[in-house]
């Protein structure tokens, strides 16, 4: 069997850190190869090297057995390598076709031949079962669809080697299944795939081989069929990982958050949340389950003040907060791990230190009389970063943008937990985290609960909601379908309710 890609003894350094240290990865023709490693292990960097975004200090890359120098993504394209990035790179107000041809526009004489391109895209879409409409605008289509546009971009450019960097992190469970199907189709058409993912289940489902790296070093490559998920996890973090969440029964106290017949409009200016009422108590983790886009964002944004409330009331510790400014809400005890870490969670061009005080920079000891106290900020940030094991090249002085995705997430979680809020709203808190970090974050969330605080958990991963929560509210189409006790329910029941089938036994 011949190799389409051989990356041999690759070394790549960044200021203060060796991101790839002597890593070897080989890709056979027609295989799906998983790349597994902790947050910050160097996976994205390694793929960046293959895609020509970074130049390695040492090592050899061979494509179809010929040694090459991949000096830019253009060169990578010419060599038949395509990549779907962790964060998509699409122009929002362009159509699908326009996005796909960007950079290699087909010409008819002097003018753009959009129609020809659109036709070809439609053909490709049918051939690979992608189902993308060449004429819709990016801003109007779902995240899953946008990802397919990225895939289409690679196919349009006739890529043979497809790299996916954490493609499933932003997808709903259903979209993930679809993606797996598409990937198998692609293999049948003779493509080869490298996929980065933290979800071992997915590796088991699609991958043939798996290469594991840890802290920049290659640990080994295994055949997925012959390796259990536990073994893979252990290779990756260097110890046994506990997939079960250990927690005592909850001892709920008084009500922290009370939502009373809340109605909120969504982005399309129609009611995305209708007459929604729940109560969240001290000492409990309250989960919200639902298919994406069924009102979860509206709930969270209404509580945090990012979205206007149409009618209804929100009370925190008995005081109404329905219309007070965001800062007041934070001060009265709301912490928020946002869904989109790049859009809301971080100022990417700020240092980590500054990001760690994003909500408290104006309070003593970080500021006095309007003047910042650099050393207080530094020390505060340092303790958060140590506590949550946030790894970066230059510690607190690193620019947030240079951190690996998972480490950015850990930094945000650390910042919000450090505020010690009465109500912690955690939206997809473990998105993009490795199994070891997930274990740790789950532990911390439960500790937060056991301290007598409330946690509102919103997650698309049913497993996570079921394991962590004490009570679960299920939403469908902006309405509360029902509330169940986690220990008395199961995946099937919740799944049915997510589909809108309501149920008598509510608590």
């Amino acid at each position: 069997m011949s190799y389409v890609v051989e990356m041999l003894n690759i070394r790549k350094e960044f200021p203060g850190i060796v991101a790839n240290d002597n890593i070897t990865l080989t890709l056979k023709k027609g295989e799906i190869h998983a790349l597994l490693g902790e947050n910050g292990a160097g996976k994205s960097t390694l793929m960046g090297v293959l895609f020509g975004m970074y130049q390695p200090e040492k090592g050899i890359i061979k494509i179809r057995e010929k040694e090459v120098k991949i000096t830019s993504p253009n060169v990578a394209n010419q060599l038949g390598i395509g990549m779907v990035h962790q964060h998509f790179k699409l122009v929002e107000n362009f159509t699908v076709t326009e996005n796909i041809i960007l950079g290699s526009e087909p010409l008819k004489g002097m003018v753009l031949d959009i129609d020809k391109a659109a036709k070809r895209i439609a053909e490709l879409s049918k051939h690979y079962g992608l189902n993308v409409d060449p004429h819709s605008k990016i801003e109007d289509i779902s995240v899953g669809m946008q990802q397919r546009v990225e895939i289409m971009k690679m196919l349009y450019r006739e890529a043979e080697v497809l790299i996916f960097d954490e493609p499933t992190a932003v997808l709903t469970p259903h979209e993930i299944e679809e993606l797996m199907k598409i990937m198998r189709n692609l293999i049948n058409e003779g493509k080869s795939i490298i996929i980065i993912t933290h979800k071992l289940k997915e590796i088991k489902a699609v991958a043939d081989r798996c290469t594991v790296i840890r802290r920049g070093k290659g640990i080994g490559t295994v055949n997925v069929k012959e390796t259990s998920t536990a073994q893979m996890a252990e290779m990756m973090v260097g110890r046994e990982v506990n997939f079960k969440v250990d927690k005592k029964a909850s001892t709920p106290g008084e009500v922290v958050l009370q939502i009373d017949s809340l109605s909120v409009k969504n982005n399309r200016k129609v009611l995305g949340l209708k007459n929604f009422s729940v109560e969240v108590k001290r000492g409990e983790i309250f989960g919200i389950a639902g298919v994406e886009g069924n009102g979860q964002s509206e709930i969270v944004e209404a509580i945090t003040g990012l979205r206007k409330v149409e009618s209804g009331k929100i009370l925190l510790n008995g005081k109404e907060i329905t219309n007070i400014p965001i800062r007041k809400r934070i001060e009265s005890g709301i912490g928020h791990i946002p869904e989109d870490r790049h859009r809301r969670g971080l100022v990417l061009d700020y240092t980590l230190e500054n990001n760690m005080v994003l909500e408290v920079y104006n309070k003593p000891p970080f500021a006095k009389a309007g003047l910042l106290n650099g050393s207080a900020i530094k020390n505060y940030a340092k303790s958060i970063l140590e506590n949550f094991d946030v790894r970066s090249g230059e510690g607190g002085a690193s620019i947030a943008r240079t951190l690996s995705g998972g480490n950015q997430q850990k930094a945000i979680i650390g910042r919000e937990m450090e505020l010690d809020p009465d109500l912690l709203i955690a939206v997809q808190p473990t998105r993009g985290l490795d199994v070891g970090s997930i274990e740790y974050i789950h532990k911390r969330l439960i500790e937060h609960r056991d301290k007598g605080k409330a946690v509102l958990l919103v997650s698309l991963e049913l497993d996570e909601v079921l394991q962590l929560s004490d009570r679960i509210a299920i939403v469908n189409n902006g309405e509360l379908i029902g509330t169940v006790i986690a220990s008395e329910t199961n995946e099937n029941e919740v799944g049915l309710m997510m589909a809108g089938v309501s149920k008598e036994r509510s608590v």
Partner: protein
Amino acid sequence: MRNTIVSLISIVLGLIAGGLLMLFIGASPIEGYTYLFQGALKNISRIGDTLATATPLIFSGLAVAFAFRTGLFNIGASGQMLIGGLAATAVALTFDLSRPILLIVMVLAGIIGGGLWAFIPGLFKAKFNVHEVVSTIMMNWIAYWTVYYVVPGYFKGEFLETESRKLAEETTLRTPWLTELFQGSYINLGLFFGVIAVIIMAFIINKTTLGFELKAVGFNRHAAEYAGMKVNRNIILSMLISGALAGLGGVALYTGNASSMQIGILPSQGYDGIAVALLGANSPVGVFFAALLFGILYSGTGFMNAMIEIPPELANTIIAIIIYFAATSVLIHRVLNKFRKTRSNSNDVDGPVGKKGEA
């Protein structure tokens, strides 16, 4: 550090290109540049004039840079300077106050005038999401016509319809001791205000909670909103401060360097502020030195033109070329990276550092 190197390289490349142009029109570049720098720096009085030429540019550069650091593009420095200058001139021509008090009131009037002129686009941006580029340009023309109307209407000069009355010497920013020190140059207190403004802006941007907020809003307004910062208030405040800086520049220009206002002219210094900010990489100190350089080029060009057959437009051309290089600094970053790599073998084409400077 890296930005400084890029700016310096841009300047050198611009000067080389200017030299080539001189060659092209048949003059000697060595001679040309000798006269250019002599014209700007030959004696103490010329140095004074050069500093005075640079002063309004310090302000307009700071104005643009400040707005830019907070994510806003203030193209309206010209109009803000006009209104600032008009307000100060009006004060000087109307009130009969003792000199120190009068100067303070003039400066305040300039700050308020310029600030107000930028406050309006800020408000429009915050309330109606009107892009500040469009509204500040419109405000430029409103300022232009305001001066056109107000000056002949209320402050008409003795002989000329198109100019305001001349300010009495003791109602301008010029002071005898400075004029004497610089042997008759028109250098004035504006320069000191400029230096103070540089220091204050550096302080605000780097050391205060206000600067922390303004920058956060500029980099990512969604995250700023999430963290409880008042995004709209910050946009308005940032425009206000930016406009106040430009307005003060207008005071320096019209009641320091000049002593009357002409109608029908938008001060080019306002637009030059964009170039100054770009070359100074939006840092206050960088802006200061970039303004000095522009001052040298502008004030030396007349002498060069008098001594040798090189048209004065050459200064503008050189500035344009320098800006061109500074604006395409990505290229210079790349070359620098290559250079560093061959030496230390540890960098990439588009590494992390490359991303910071591309403002």
